[in-house]
């Protein structure tokens, strides 16, 4: 009986104007937006490749070990066309320096700050807004509309149980809404794959599958909300109005309200406090350096520009300078590395306060199915804060490996090759050549490997999906409770 009702509802809805307009709009929007988003991804990938190549070329020019300061770039996420998340708001590169620990930073600090006037735009906007409105429109007259037409009392005049009717309507609604979602997804994928730079691996396909599943669960939650209002109102116009107002609350009020509230409840540390802490650590560092550092005695006679990464190295110097600097660097560099950790602690406490704020905002916004869906999609696309955090963790590990490498090659920063290309033998012979010294052989420098962990992502997305499923069950149960007491005359 459930299947019969579902089939009848499905065919009825398929033939309506609203379904046709909604599906055509979804298709048109996907067809228009996806090429733009894919082109933008291509541009960002090109920029990334250019940056990586430039970095490699600079590394080949390095002449002294202290100038090994490569920048590690984070590749743009391939699925960011589906959910942009924080891709454009958080910095996507980190520089490896001896005296600074790399951390997450704002992209706006290095990009165009005026682009903050625009809001985030990705393909999941189509699902969040257009298809959820379509779900409301399909659901609002499911029960109250049938009551107005007089057909509801005819169905229930038979031996059909009320739960069979409602389950049939649920099934029908889901079948109807699967059509535009599937068409939109397939179209989006086809357009994305038609771009040559896009290359999806096995884990990417799993993620896309999960995105599809998340979209289905989300849309069915919105359908259940519409069904609930349909069972509460006697006239379909009222159920539509109620449903739309609740939709506005979910789309507009809850996301903005949760961000605002979290900013009020957990304000981040002020810039002045952080600057004060940084200044005091810097003072401590300079006093410790000046206490232990040997005085400068030697003199350099010639230094040249033009090493890698815009830094300098000493080309020629005298014996006193060489020995003096060897002592200097072997004392100073480990100290700088130690203080880098102290500076990082200050930055880390600031970032922790920001993460705490974000966590609170996320928790508050979990009242809205749209926010749950957003979180799940951005996690699956690899554009949420967790993905940036794992990138930075990888960069930090890489930095430690590079520091160990330099330490081993320069005998704990005391070798002359740390700061000059001039060797002791050359100093004794004192040749008059001014040719450029050769670059260092860095073939055994550790390489940065970035691996995205699919299991972590899956584990992260389960709470949001579970909450969406719970929302589904809750709304349907409420609709059922209302329908059982519904006056069908």
């Amino acid at each position, binding site marked *: 009986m459930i299947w019969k009702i579902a089939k009848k509802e499905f065919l009825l809805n398929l033939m309506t104007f609203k379904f046709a307009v909604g599906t055509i709009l979804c298709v048109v929007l996907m067809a228009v937006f996806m090429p733009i988003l894919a082109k933008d991804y291509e541009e960002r990938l090109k920029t990334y490749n250019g940056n990586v190549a430039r970095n490699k070329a600079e590394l080949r020019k390095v002449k002294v070990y202290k100038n090994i300061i490569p920048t590690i770039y984070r590749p743009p996420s391939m699925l960011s066309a589906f959910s942009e998340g924080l891709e454009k708001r958080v910095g996507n590169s980190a520089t490896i320096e001896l005296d600074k620990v790399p951390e997450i930073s704002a992209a706006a600090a290095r990009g165009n700050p005026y682009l903050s006037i625009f809001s985030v735009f990705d393909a999941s906007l189509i699902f969040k807004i257009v298809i959820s409105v379509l779900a409301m429109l399909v659901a609002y007259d499911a029960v109250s509309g049938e009551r107005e037409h007089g057909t509801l009392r005819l169905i229930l005049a038979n031996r059909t149980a009320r739960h069979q009717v409602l389950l049939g309507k649920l099934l029908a609604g889901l079948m109807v809404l699967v059509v535009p979602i599937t068409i939109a997804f397939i179209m989006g994928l086809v357009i994305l794959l038609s771009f040559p730079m896009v290359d999806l691996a096995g884990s990417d396909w799993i993620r896309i599958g999960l995105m599809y599943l998340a979209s289905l669960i989300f849309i069915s939650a919105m359908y259940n909300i519409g069904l609930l209002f349909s069972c509460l109102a006697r006239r379909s116009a009222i159920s539509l109005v109620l449903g739309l*107002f609740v939709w506005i609350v979910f789309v507009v009020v809850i996301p903005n309200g949760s961000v605002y509230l979290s900013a009020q409840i957990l304000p981040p540390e002020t810039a002045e406090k952080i600057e004060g802490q940084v200044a005091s650590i810097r003072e401590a560092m300079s006093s410790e350096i000046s206490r232990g550092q040997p005085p400068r005695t030697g003199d350099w006679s010639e230094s040249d520009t033009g090493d890698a990464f815009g830094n300098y190295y000493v080309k020629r110097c005298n014996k006193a300078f060489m020995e003096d600097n060897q002592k200097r660097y072997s004392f100073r560099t480990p100290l700088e590395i130690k203080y880098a950790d102290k500076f990082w602690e200050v930055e880390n406490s600031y970032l922790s306060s920001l993460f705490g704020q974000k966590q609170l905002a996320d928790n508050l916004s979990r009242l809205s199915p749209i926010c749950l869906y957003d979180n799940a999609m951005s996690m699956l696309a690899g554009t949420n804060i967790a993905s940036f955090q794992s990138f930075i963790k990888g960069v930090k590990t890489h930095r430690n490996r590079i520091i160990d490498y330099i330490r081993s090659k320069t005998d704990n920063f005391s070798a002359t090759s740390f700061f000059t290309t001039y060797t002791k033998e050359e100093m004794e012979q004192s040749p008059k050549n001014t040719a450029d010294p050769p670059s260092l052989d860095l073939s055994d420098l550790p390489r940065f490997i970035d691996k995205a962990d699919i299991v972590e992502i899956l584990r992260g997305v389960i709470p949001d999906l579970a909450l969406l499923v719970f929302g589904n069950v809750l709304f349907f149960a409420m609709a059922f409770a209302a329908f059982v007491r519904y006056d069908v005359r």
Partner: protein
Amino acid sequence: MIRPIICKELLENLLSIRFILSMLLIISLFSVSGFLFVGKYGQQSDDYWRKTNRNLAGLREQSDRLYQLAFYKQEVYSKPKPLTLCVEGFEKSLPNCLRFDVFTSDLPEVKSQSSFILPQFSDIDWVFIISLVLSFVVLVFTYDCICGEKETGTLRLMLAGSIPRYKVLIAKYFGVTFTVGIPLLVGLLVNLIIVVSSKDVVLDGEIWLKVFAIVVLSFLYLSIFVLLGMFVSSRTAHSANSMVVLLLVWVALVILIPSLGRIISDLSARAPTAEELERKLAEVGDQVSNDERSGKFGERAGYMSTNPNDPRNNPPARARLKTAGANAKNAALEGHHNKTLAQAFAGRDITSISPTVIYQRASEAVAGTGINHCVNLHEETKQYQASLKEYIRSKDLEDPNSLHLIFPEEGCAQYWQTISHRPVDFDTVPKFQERDLALGQSLKLAIWDIGLLMLFNLVFFAAAFVSFLRYDVR
């Protein structure tokens, strides 16, 4: 005949559930907006004055030697404006701090309290409530104004009389406008009462005029949606179909098209990245060094000894070298800054097919907030830099001991006395003060957008008129 129809529409709407729900939603949103604004404005003002006074105190310390005034890096912040109540214009994520001295200025920076990790939330200002929520509410009122009456059978009864169709249309338009105007005006009143009764915010005559201008703009914007609703309603025979079309058009116009702005600006007018700027600055620096080596600025322009009587010093040549370097760097930074602004404006221009974007832009222009505020601040600091430089030059001429060479190298000014070392009276030193644009100028900036909004109104009115004339009322 128009008046009875207007009264009938008004009374019918006043007793409906959608009016009650709209009233509740709009009044609560406006009161929340008022409380939030009052809460943060006081604190923002305090912050601003504290930082400005700190800057002035620093400047005062420099006035015991004229040359120090030239090299002191002043920090100027954008003043919080009361009109951010009406339209905030994303100011909390836009650059609000400019550091400069007389010769160079850095790129504007964002120094704010908001976190870059949190999703950007639009502050609940009037423009947000009106452009998003009220336009939606308007559609909920107008979707069945014609086809709904056809379904209930009252439309043919009304037109069976001798009333011309255009009068019916005009009467319905005014009916819906008054219906929506009631919660809007009540909400605005509640909001203004909350703001005026707080001690932190002071609204003067000019601000009230601008508020009135923004209210007029809001009515223009909302009437576009009234006419759109009436147009779609008079094209369909079933109110359900009209609702569907209107909802989807609303989603496209109000949510989707404005969001396209970022991507379109990236594709059409992408500004150079920070790395590219660094490369350009390095290139420009190399160019100046090459010129110096080739002797373009004079002999020994690169030589600088702290002993002013060293015969190898060549102050005029060094002045030329350093001025050229500073000018080249300034030009590169200015070019970069202009390109970043151009990208933002391009994105906005291309998406201004949506009335929402036009309304936002017009309100920001009238209120002087948002990205226009940043542009104005930048212009005013440039003018201030020029006036301070002129002041230093004129004071320097009075000192016979100085070499009268005003160029950006503090070491030379200190050791060679290229700029006077005499103290100056701090009261005569020009100080930076941000000025608001006059109402006339603000309106001039917004004139195109006001014209566009009126054009939208005319187009939708004509469309509704033609559709209703041919409407089958049986």
